[in-house]
């Protein structure tokens, strides 16, 4: 069974990114489960594959509007598709870096891949029930999807 500490590590990675890079903290919403079907994702999703002690994936998914504001806040005027992807990849990287530091060799964490889609669904690589952790930033809401078995 997935333990709380493991999920917290992923949450901390995302929180850390917003604190440091966006210099504005993110509010963690109350988490919940997806009990039926695949979880829905926003326009941009960074996926980190996990193997080792646990198998599955962790995603950070955010809407275009949020990334746009985030880029502006970081004094980045280029809001092209590539830059959006880079940004989401960077958040995912911070999350995976944090996890690597905390979990050590127990978890084998892949380099993030970035997926852009409009109102897509994320199909988890494993049969575990996905945990959704809403991340509210200003008026926007992103999600962390933790699907590990």
């Amino acid at each position, binding site marked *: *069974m*997935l*333990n*709380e500490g493991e*999920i*917290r590590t992923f*949450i901390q990675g995302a929180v850390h990114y917003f604190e440091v890079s966006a210099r504005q903290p993110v*509010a*963690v*919403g*109350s*988490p*919940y*489960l997806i*009990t039926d079907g695949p979880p829905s994702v926003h326009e941009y999703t960074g996926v980190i*594959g996990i*193997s*080792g002690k646990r198998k599955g994936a962790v995603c950070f998914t955010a809407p275009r509007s949020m990334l746009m504001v985030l880029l502006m806040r970081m004094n980045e005027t280029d809001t092209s598709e590539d830059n959006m992807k880079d940004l989401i990849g960077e958040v995912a990287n911070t999350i995976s870096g944090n996890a690597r530091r905390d979990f*050590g*060799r127990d978890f*084998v*964490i*892949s*380099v993030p*891949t970035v997926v852009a889609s409009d109102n897509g669904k994320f199909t988890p690589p494993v049969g575990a*029930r996905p*945990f*959704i*952790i*809403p991340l*509210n930033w200003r008026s926007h809401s992103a999600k962390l999807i933790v699907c590990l078995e």
Partner: protein
Amino acid sequence: MIKNVSTAWTRAQRGPVAFGVLVLLFALAVLLPGFRLAGRLDDTAAALRLVSEQRRQPDIVFGALASVRDRLESFGYVEEPLGELRAGVKELDGLVGKLTADPAAFGTFDASPVRAVQSSALLKVEMETLSKSWATYKEALAPIIEFTGVPYADSESSGVQLNPAGRKLTVEARKALVATRKETPVLVAATARVAATLEADSARLSTYLRFLMLAALTGAIALGVGLVYIAVARRREGALLVNAQRQTADILGTVKEGLFLLDEKARIGATHSASLERLFKRSDLAGISFEELLKPLVPEKTLQTAQRFVEVLWSERTRENLVKSINPLQEVEVSFDSGSGSQETRWLEFDFHRVKNDSKLVNLLVSVSDVTPRVRLARELAESREKAQSQVDTLLGVLHVNAAQLRSFLSDSDAAMKMVNAMLREPAREESAFRRKLDSIFRQIHSIKGEAAALGLGTVEGRAHEFEDALKELRERSALSGGDFLPLVVKLDDLFTHLASISDLVSRLAQLNFVATAPEAAAVGGAEAPAAVAPKPNDPISETLDQLVERVAKDRGKSARLAADGLGTVPADYRRAVKDIAVQAVRNALVHGIEDPEFRKRSGKQAVGTIKVEFRAEGAGGYRLIIEDDGAGLNSRRIREAAIARGIVTSEEAARLEPKQLLSLLFRPGFSTQDVADEDAGRGVGMNVVAELVKEMRGRIGISSGEGRYTRFTIVLPAIATVAAGAAA
């Protein structure tokens, strides 16, 4: 393997060396005597040639002497025979001188007749005879040889006459002839003997030399044969070596294990198996240190332990088997970058063997195997064993439960958990919203727990209880945020998984018609329990309550029976709520109301307590649910004290409360008269949940109690349509 190759090399080197020594010895054994023999033969030949040349000289000298005398007597020309005589003497003198000279006067490589004489004792004797005879001979000839001048005097008067010198010479010549006539045969014989001895010596030496040559030829043939043998052997050994090397290469190229040697400085040898490169995904292995090999793959601590382990292995005092038992690299998890960004995890097993040469430790042979499939299989096996055990536990936990009850419970619980999830999912950013969530979740979980307890599903009850603990902990926090709900979600996930596994089990058992037969078995097994005496209930709520009474009574050392009535007529819309209320109220009755059997007897009551649960329809489509026990009744003093102790009211407020108000405290959140919370009571949520449920159904609740006699809860529920209308409003 390595040792064999080195032995082969030694043998290959030893052959030629031995052969070289043999050739040297052969050369010394043949050439040195041959050299000496050839020298002696040369000396003998020179001596023999000399003696042979001068062999006739004594006769010539004698003839010349006679001729001198004859010429003197006939007044002939004497100078010619005198010259011959002198020449003969000189030759013989030379012969004797050469055969008796100092051997040192001749060089090593010069033919030396005297060395031939010196080397033979017989020749020495003969030479002595010859020398003596010659000395005598020569002495006799000396006056003649020394003669100079003319022996004649020519005068007119007497013609040619011997002059005095001539006469003396004639006398001497006659004397010499007498002397030499006797000595000449001696001298000739002596010379002949010397010649014969020299010839014999020459023949002997020639024979020796032939034998030596024959021996040399034999030796040379033997050496030749030896040389051929060695060449063949070397060729064979070379072929063996090449073959051994090829076999070694084949083994190293084919073997699955990574094999390599570690020297004393913990460096990897130049040769290793091909698999090693595949296992470590690198090719620069030759010559690198063990540390360099492991560092990128294992944690620092494992690396240090492994290095110490290798050091211990090098210490020959420690027993190899003992050391191997503490091998820290028996199952090492390593991760490699698969190249596409992801990591590949494998498990490697290192095994160490000491390699000794002449009982001296020279290397450590390290074999590395990829044991990933084995480790994965073992883990899967452990997981499946754990899963199977957990399924057996679950199975044992559900076997006694009626199938219909279980299905009803599973369906209700699934709905409750989905409700909890929906509550969690509801967006909330404010404190009050979070607290509302907590309260709603609490009711759902408590309901699951209640029914699980009633059905005796310990594993579910335990999980729900822990869930409640987590909820309680959150409730007590002064500030809440979304992240605080994470433990609840984890527990919810666990509960979902657990109930799914029960559901799966139930479906499978249903296929076997197993669960359906279980209640009968349970009833027979529980024949001693008072509840079992009652007629068998025939609706799921009664059955649930019956089991609850039986279990809680047993746990608390009490005796009680359930008297259920009309529970089979509960409308579907109320079924869940009625069940939750009844479960809570019956549990409260057992825990707080029914006294223990001894106490009851002393109080003049029946030892077995009775809990009545009655459901009936009332006029105008309403319903009435009554839960009544014949226990101790409500104790105003205890209620007051508990309310004060739990901070629900102050002591002043409590003192002012009227009996009816006092009873209403029972429905306040957090109220309980039990000091320590357990799975049945004490958390102070039960009656609050009842009140909330009644409120949700727009019903009313009333309590009446007679101290020492009874407690009765009366719940009045409106008609279903009214509830729906209320909800819609």
